[in-house]
């Protein structure tokens, strides 16, 4: 088999971060090549380099495609050469029909007038190829996610695809839909289409792929051949194999009285009424405890947290939340705050902060009662509160009147934390508290978490970074596809054990 694609020594730097460091990838013609790695390892960046999202010249290294040096300036460039990428978030227009979507930007038109007859006919053929029995005129929003995925593939086929890249194609799919998709990949392979699949699910990887490349911390670690038989353990070891040094401040493990218990929590998707996002989850947090929730993106961690916090996500929510052993009313955000809960969002820019307002404005926002009398704000009290947290959390800013939009990620995160600490919560749910902030600021956030635990607060920490969970938590719940698949005490937990809990299912 000849080599279709070779990426040599690809290095891509962002300000302050080396996302890819001398990555090599070699894909043979007609194979299914899997790329595995943790969140943030650099898989998506590598695919963006390949597809021209980051144009030639913005990275170092060479891409050889079909035996010649390729310099893609845009997605259009790479698509013209038959490289089609299907992203995790589908890029279909929900209000248009299947045929309209498939030929979007590539219309079957003559002098600007679309030949619908031809479009629909060709769509029918494409749909037959991917095994989807829907009329070409069906609107996208009437299809489930699995079928939409198939439409995306049909769209790729309409463009004479040579190299099909699927980024986490089964992350949002039900089991039988996943199965169908994998079968289709094998079918396409027999027709001569080369594919790259990015996936966390090692059982699926083992099922379809001929070769596996593992990427870790922006470097290609190993390339494994399926002919030798790939053991999942080998992949897991390569994925997580990095040493965990003293990146986490020491903390005494202590667990006091029971603070919060969640029992039988069920949540359905807000739009797709038939999709259950959270499946019968129960967990608890004791005073002074830091409890982790591990799981890949899309496993439902944020949905769990937000549905508990004032039903901010989902529909048909059922289950019980108890605080100090008695049932707590968390049915609205203000009631959840009143009950002693706080939720620090993973998406601080769009859900956590009001960017054009000041640090002071944001700090007092969730607890204005504390700085007002009879509904009238006391500006001095506000400034004092904001100053207090600025000092306590070591927020680096000229003054608390600074716009938060001008702060760095780490300092913005501290303002969000300040907002919630100001509500004097008993249980804090921290969702990806260190995402997108530099190492120094991370350490400071960890120190704050430890301090909260010392004060006897309960902390629930959601993170995609397993070393962080292992370094910080007393207990770790492992979550996958909306359910808890395991619970580990810190001393028994390891990245391998967590990963194998996630991937064996």
């Amino acid at each position, binding site marked *: 088999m000849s080599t279709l694609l070779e990426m040599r020594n690809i290095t891509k730097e962002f300000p302050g971060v080396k996302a890819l460091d001398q990555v090599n990838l070699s894909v043979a013609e007609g194979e299914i090549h899997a790329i595995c790695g943790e969140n943030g390892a650099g898989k998506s960046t590598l695919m963006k380099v390949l597809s021209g999202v980051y144009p030639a010249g913005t990275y170092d290294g060479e891409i050889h495609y079909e035996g010649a040096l390729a310099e893609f300036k845009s997605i259009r460039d790479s698509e013209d050469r038959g490289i089609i990428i299907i992203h995790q978030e589908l890029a279909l227009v929900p209000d248009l029909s299947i045929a309209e979507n498939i030929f979007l930007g590539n219309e079957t038109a003559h002098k600007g007038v679309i030949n619908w007859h031809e479009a629909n006919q060709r769509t029918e053929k494409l749909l037959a190829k991917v095994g989807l029995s829907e009329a070409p005129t069906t609107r996208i929003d009437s299809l489930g996610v699995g079928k939409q995925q198939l439409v995306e593939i049909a769209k790729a086929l309409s463009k004479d695809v040579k190299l099909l890249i699927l980024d986490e194609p089964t992350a949002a799919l039900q089991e039988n839909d996943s199965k169908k998709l994998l079968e289709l990949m094998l079918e396409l392979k027999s027709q001569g289409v080369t594919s790259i699949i990015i996936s966390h699910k090692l059982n699926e990887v083992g099922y379809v792929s001929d070769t596996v490349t593992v990427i870790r911390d922006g470097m290609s670690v190993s390339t494994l051949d399926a002919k030798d038989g790939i053991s999942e353990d080998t992949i897991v070891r390569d994925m997580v194999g990095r040493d965990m040094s003293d990146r986490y401040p020491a903390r005494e493990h202590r667990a006091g009285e029971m603070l919060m218990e969640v029992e039988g929590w069920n949540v359905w998707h807000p739009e797709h009424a038939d999709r259950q996002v959270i499946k019968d989850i129960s967990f608890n947090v004791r005073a002074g405890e830091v409890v982790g929730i591990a799981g890949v993106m899309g496993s439902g961690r944020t949905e769990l947290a937000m549905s508990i916090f004032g039903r901010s996500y989902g529909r048909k929510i059922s289950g019980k939340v108890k605080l100090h052993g008695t049932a707590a009313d968390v049915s609205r955000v203000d009631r959840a*705050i009143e009950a002693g809960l706080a939720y620090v*969002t993973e998406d601080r820019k*769009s859900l*956590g902060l009001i960017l054009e*307002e000041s640090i002071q404005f944001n700090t007092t926002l969730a607890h204005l*009662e504390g700085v007002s009398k009879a*509904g*009238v*704000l006391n500006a001095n009290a506000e400034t004092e509160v904001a100053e207090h947290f600025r000092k306590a959390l070591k927020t680096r800013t000229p*003054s608390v009147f600074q716009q938060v939009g001008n702060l760095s990620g780490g300092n913005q995160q501290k303002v969000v934390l300040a907002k919630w600490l100001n509500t004097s919560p008993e249980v804090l749910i921290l969702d990806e508290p260190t995402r997108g902030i530099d190492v120094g600021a991370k350490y400071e956030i960890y120190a704050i978490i430890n301090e909260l635990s010392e004060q006897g607060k309960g902390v629930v920490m959601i993170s995609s970074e397993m070393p962080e969970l292992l370094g910080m938590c007393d207990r770790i719940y492992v979550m996958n596809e909306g359910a808890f698949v395991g619970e580990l005490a810190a001393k028994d937990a390891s990245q391998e054990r967590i990963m194998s809990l996630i991937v064996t299912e």
Partner: protein
Amino acid sequence: MEKTTPSIKSHLKAHMRDFGLLFALIAIMAFFQIATGGILLRPVNITNLLLQNSYIIIMALGMLIVIVAGHIDLSVGSVMGFIGALAAVMIVSAGLPVPLVILVCLIAGGIIGGAQGYFVAFWRIPPFIVTLAGMLVFRGLSLWLLEGQSIGPFPKEFQVLSTGFVPDVFPAAWGAALAELVGARKFNVLCFVLGLIAAISVVLMGLKKRSRDAEYGIVSEPMSLFWARNLIVAGALVFLMFKLATFRGVPNVLVTMAILIGIYAFITERTVIGRRVYALGGNEKAAKLSGIKTERLNFMAFVNMGVLAALAGLIFAARLNSATPKAGFALELDVIAAVFIGGASMSGGSGKIIGAVVGAFIMGVMNNGMSILGIGIDYQQVIKGLVLLAAVFFDVYNKQKQG
């Protein structure tokens, strides 16, 4: 913390918007004062200016809150006309007592605002559509109420809402003496005293804020600029009230307006509910996750707008002394323009009451000045449109240069 007072130039640059607005108003007034040969600032014309613009300013207060919350209300002109018609039918045709009618009309305004707010807040229908519908509905309903005719005149006790003046409480001899002193025919002492009080409180409040800022190490504006700004504002207040004193004194409408401006400035800047409106407009999702009841707040913004539109409708009808099917036609555009000229952002989350008031005066002075000059309605509209575009362009340009 290091405390440095920036140079005058850099401070002016950083606060271009606030100063720009003030200078624009002064420049426009100066221009028309000269162009009209001094007619603009004659006492009788100042009184007219206030009466003509009172209802726009009152509605601009509510519109500012609606716009800060991230919405728009196109229906206020029609609602205002409808309430005027309602008042006319109840007072002139049915002979109901005036105080009762005023109360009923204000409540009706609240219900109208609430009905529109209900669809915006709880069903998330874009306010542009809901209030466009409201605009048509209430325009139609006022035509129906009035059966296409004008209804009037109103009894005296209703007219005073707009055309009445506050009687002088000081002895008549004082007034006579002062009138002789300044060479006017008469002099309303109360009016002038109120002007002095207003001017002094502006300066005192400015000083208080300044000392508080200094305490917390906020970089204040340069001392010279502070005094220049405050003396201009205070001087303008004294000057205007002096002019009014030599005519008929303080119009009732001015009192209503001043009190409302004070209340709304206080609500937006100093209260929990005001703060929450800014948070809601700045980032609705973040506000909601901070425990703010965003739906209720959106609803209340429209109820409030409805009540103020009703009040404006009553004042307008009282001023015209009749309710006409055309009342309030296209007025929503003047109100919305005033708020945007005053520096509010279309995307919500920013804007000040005082800005909206100054914006309304800029539009008002231009309307009045151009009418005195006999400029046709055709050119007037063109010029007003260009001023609105220029003001917003100035905003965007400034932001891009800074950002």
